[in-house]
Each structure stands twice: as structure tokens, then as C-alpha cells.
């Protein structure tokens, strides 16, 4: 062994990549059980809706209902996977497995660790959106054009919900408390973010709430690329997502740092 070679810790990009790589290796280790469900889920959903509900509701806002609903699904899957990763996943790595303790002895800072985590959750969002997208094409629900940007919107959605979930995780003391987050926040969002019916159909009083829900803005982006319907208001959605992500990532990381560095 020689101890004389000049050394320096890896640059930021590599540090983030190495954190991402750790999560990637854990994920692909069970490629069958991790990789298949993202494709099965939309299939089951389509079967359920296509065979049943579709007979009663033919179109929504001038769009065939199955297309309306399925395009919303593209970001819902990204939302749930990123939220799981950065709530239950992060909590387990933090409290039970002590994975972070080990990683923090390597040349990584808490910021590197958690930003890497967010990027990983974004990548899962990308993959889950892509899976739904690939399932929708053969059914003719989506056609391939600018809609190819969908996985990218899945990535953005993933990053956004990963940041918010880290923030939530920073408050959680017992893993069961995540139930409130999922049933109290994420599930309602599924119904009131314009996935199942347009936000404009909500009563006047509730509409501002829908605008606060981050998923509403992801849904607008994904419908815009799927139906090639770009309006200037989309800029506001992008800004909302950017600000929301930044604020909660910053705040969540700051709070989690206190748990990781005594």
C-alpha cells in the first residue's frame, strides 16, 4: 500500500452521482419486483376505467375521458414513487438502517446526501412516468410527438414531491405518522388536482386550494405536452413548481441536517 499519492475529494457532481448510484444499485437489485409494477399499475387502471367508467362518461372538457384521466396518471405515478422514496425510504435509512451514518463517514456532506436523494427520487419519477407513457401508446391513448417530454415532467414532479416529502420527514418521529401525509395530503390531491375532473369544475371556494396543491401544476404541464396545448399560463405553473421545490428542499435539508450532524 502506498500513502503518498496526492489526493483530493471528488467534485460535487461526482458526489451527487455516487449517492444516486447507491440508490440505483439498491433499486435494480430487485429489478423484477421493482421494475414490473410501474407497468402493471397503468394497465390495471386502464382495464378498470376502460371497461367500466368509460361507458358512462364519454368526454371531459372535450377530450375523451380515458385520455383525460390517463394523462393525469402520468404524473400521479411520479408523485407517489418520489413521495414514498423520500418519506418511508428516507426515514428508514435515517433511523433504522443507519445507512446515512455510514455514508457520512465517506467524503459526502449532508447536502450532497440529501440533494442526491432528491435527484434519485426525480429519476424514479422519470421512470414511472415513462412506464405509464409506454403503456398508453399501444392503446392509442397518447400519440408520440412532443408528448415525449412526459418523462421529463415526471422527473420534475418527482423532484418536487421528494423535496416536500423530505420536509415532512424532518418532522416525523414515528414511521406511522406518514399515514397522515399519505391519506391527508397526497390522496386528496389525486382528486382535487384536475386528474379525475377539471379544477374549473370545483366550487369557487375550493378552487384556490387546488391551485395551492403542487400536483395541479404538474397535471397542467403534462396535459399541455400530451394535447399540444400550450398557453402562456403554463409559465406560472413552472414558476410555482420551481419555487415550491426550492423552498421545501432548502427547509427540509436544513431541518434534517440537525438530525444528522449533532
Amino acid at each position, binding site marked *: 500500500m502506498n500513502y503518498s499519492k496526492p489526493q483530493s475529494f*471528488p467534485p460535487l457532481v461526482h458526489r451527487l*452521482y455516487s449517492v444516486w448510484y447507491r440508490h440505483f444499485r439498491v433499486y435494480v437489485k430487485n429489478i423484477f419486483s421493482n421494475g414490473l409494477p410501474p407497468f402493471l399499475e397503468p394497465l390495471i387502471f386502464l382495464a378498470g376505467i376502460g371497461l367500466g367508467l368509460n361507458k358512462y362518461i364519454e368526454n371531459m372538457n372535450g377530450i375523451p375521458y380515458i385520455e383525460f384521466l390517463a394523462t393525469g396518471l402520468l404524473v400521479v405515478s411520479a408523485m407517489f414513487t418520489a413521495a414514498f422514496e423520500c418519506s418511508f425510504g428516507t426515514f428508514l435509512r435515517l433511523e433504522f438502517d443507519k445507512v446515512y451514518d455510514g455514508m457520512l463517514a465517506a467524503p459526502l*456532506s449532508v447536502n450532497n446526501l440529501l440533494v442526491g436523494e432528491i435527484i434519485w427520487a426525480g429519476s424514479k419519477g422519470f421512470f414511472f412516468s415513462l412506464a405509464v407513457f409506454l403503456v398508453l401508446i399501444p392503446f392509442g391513448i397518447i400519440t408520440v410527438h412532443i408528448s415525449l417530454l412526459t418523462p421529463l415532467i415526471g422527473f420534475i414532479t418527482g423532484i418536487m414531491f421528494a423535496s416536500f416529502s423530505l420536509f415532512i420527514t424532518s418532522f416525523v418521529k414515528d414511521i406511522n405518522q406518514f399515514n397522515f401525509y399519505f391519506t391527508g395530503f397526497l390522496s386528496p390531491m389525486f382528486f382535487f388536482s384536475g386528474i379525475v375532473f377539471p379544477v374549473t369544475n370545483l366550487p369557487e371556494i375550493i378552487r384556490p386550494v387546488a391551485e395551492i396543491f403542487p400536483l395541479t401544476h404538474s397535471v397542467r404541464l403534462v396535459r399541455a405536452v400530451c394535447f399540444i396545448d400550450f398557453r402562456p399560463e403554463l409559465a406560472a405553473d413552472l414558476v410555482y413548481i420551481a419555487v415550491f421545490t426550492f423552498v421545501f428542499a432548502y427547509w427540509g435539508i436544513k431541518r434534517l441536517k440537525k438530525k444528522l450532524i*449533532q
Partner: protein
Amino acid sequence: MSSSVIEVENLNKTFKSIPAVVNIGFKVEKAGCFGFLGPNGAGKTTIMKMIYGKCLRDNNQNSKLKVFGIDPGRNELDIKYKTGVVPQDNNLDEQLDVFTNLWVYAKFYRLPPEEAVTRIKELLTFMELAEKQKAKIKELSGGMKRRLVLARALLNKPRLLILDEPTTGLDPQVRHLIWQKINQLKKQGTTILLTTHYMEEAFQLCDEIFILDFGRKIMSGRPAVLLEQHIEKYVLIIFDKNNFQAAEKTAEHNNLRQEESNDGLRLYGNSLEQLKAFARKLNMYEYYLRQSNLEDLFLKITGRNINELQ
């Protein structure tokens, strides 16, 4: 530049107004082995964590903490790059197998892939784990896990190795194997910082020991020198309560220090003959006569009672 790898002065750490480390100062020279001894809750682990930035020291002006000349509060990455850490609890990635555990860490240090593979194989052989490459972490015994954590800490050829109770809970075979490896690393120029509850371990490995209790320094120095200066050479332990009175008399008569505890009465003295003379009056299984060791010293200065932190 000084040859010290670690320089510490006036180091303090308070957890929610409870002082965990109080005014600690020490220096660790290159290729030396420096050992912390102290009861549970004495502040050993906290000091270790402050050295690699896992814990931040209290901010006061005259405190100083330099590792490789760098303040871990400012640039922990540089220190962590050159340091290997074996924490008290094994924190292996249970979701990955033995090889991949090391492979992922090689990425953290940015070892080139071919070099990483060579290095991992080399370390697994060094730690006698070569056959376990593909094993799941759950299939490993406690000793194997510990060796794997040690192998992981050695991936980047660290110049400083931090070992927090490296052999706690391991059988004597594995413990001796780990000692042998640590000595080998020391010879190669690695500086070692160690905490342990095994006095034998501290005696075998450390050039210098630092005994602390309630976050404060009790004493420090070379183990042999400390023994010589602070405790009598021999100890006679008497188990049978019926013999206590006679023993106490002898002790007073010969000016021997005595210490009573639940497991017996101890007579400490520098003359082996004196102790032997008394021991001859006892039955064979009622006493134990031996050289005093670091554990006797440790118990002498930290007391036999258990405190609320332990």
C-alpha cells in the same frame, strides 16, 4: 509543519445544556495509536465524531480542532477523504451484498473501476472474507460484519483510521485477528484513533491512552508508564468472605492498599513476596494472585460504581 495528525485544545461539546465533553486537549502523532478509555457515556464517541465532522463542537474562541491541519467544522470533506471510520454500530448496507457494499463506497471515493475491483479483492483477502464476496449482509456473523466494516474503512487507503470499539462483542479469535491487522496498518504508517472497553486491547495496541470520565480528562500517557506511576505492581484477590478479616489485618500490617467489591477483597502491593506469604494461608480456589493491569488502574480511577450515564 508539525507532525501531529490531530491537534485538539479546549474541546467542548454540550448536548441540550448537558456537558458531554469538557475542555479536552490532546495530540496524535503520525503513525501512532491513540486510545480513549472511559465508561459508557464518558464522551469517547462524541470526540471521535467531532474529528470527522459528524458532530460539531461548541463554538468558543479558544477551542482548537485540527485534523491534517484542517478544521472539520469548515472542511470536513478533505478530512473524510483521508480518514477511514469504523463506527460503534455496524452500518452496512443490508440491501446490498458484501462486494457491492464496498463497490458503492469505492464510488464515494471515486476510485477508478479497475482499481476499485483490485482494491476490494485485496481488502477482502486481507480481512479473510474473500469467500464471502457474494454473501448477503444478513448471512454474515458478527465478526465478519465487523471485518467488513473495517475493510470498508480501508478502501481509500486512509492516513487516519478511527475505530470506535472495533472489537466489542467479538470472540477472542476475531479480536486477535483485528489487532494483528491494526498493528500491520500502524507499521505501514496509518495513524489510529481508538476507543475500547478492553484494557488488554488498549495495552496491546496503543502508544498512548487517554482516560476520561464525565467528559473530562482523568489521565493520559503511555500505558506502561501509567501503570507504573499509578498502581501497585501486584494484586491479590480474595474471594472467600471468611478470610476478609485476616486479610485486612495483613494489609494494615504490611501497608497494602485494599479495595473491597462485590466479587472479593483486593490487596495491592509492590512486593510479590508479601502477597504470596499471605496467600499461602488460603486454600487454592479462594484467591487469585496476578500482576495488576490497566483494568485495575481504570477501576481505581473511575470507581467501581455505575453512574447514571452508563
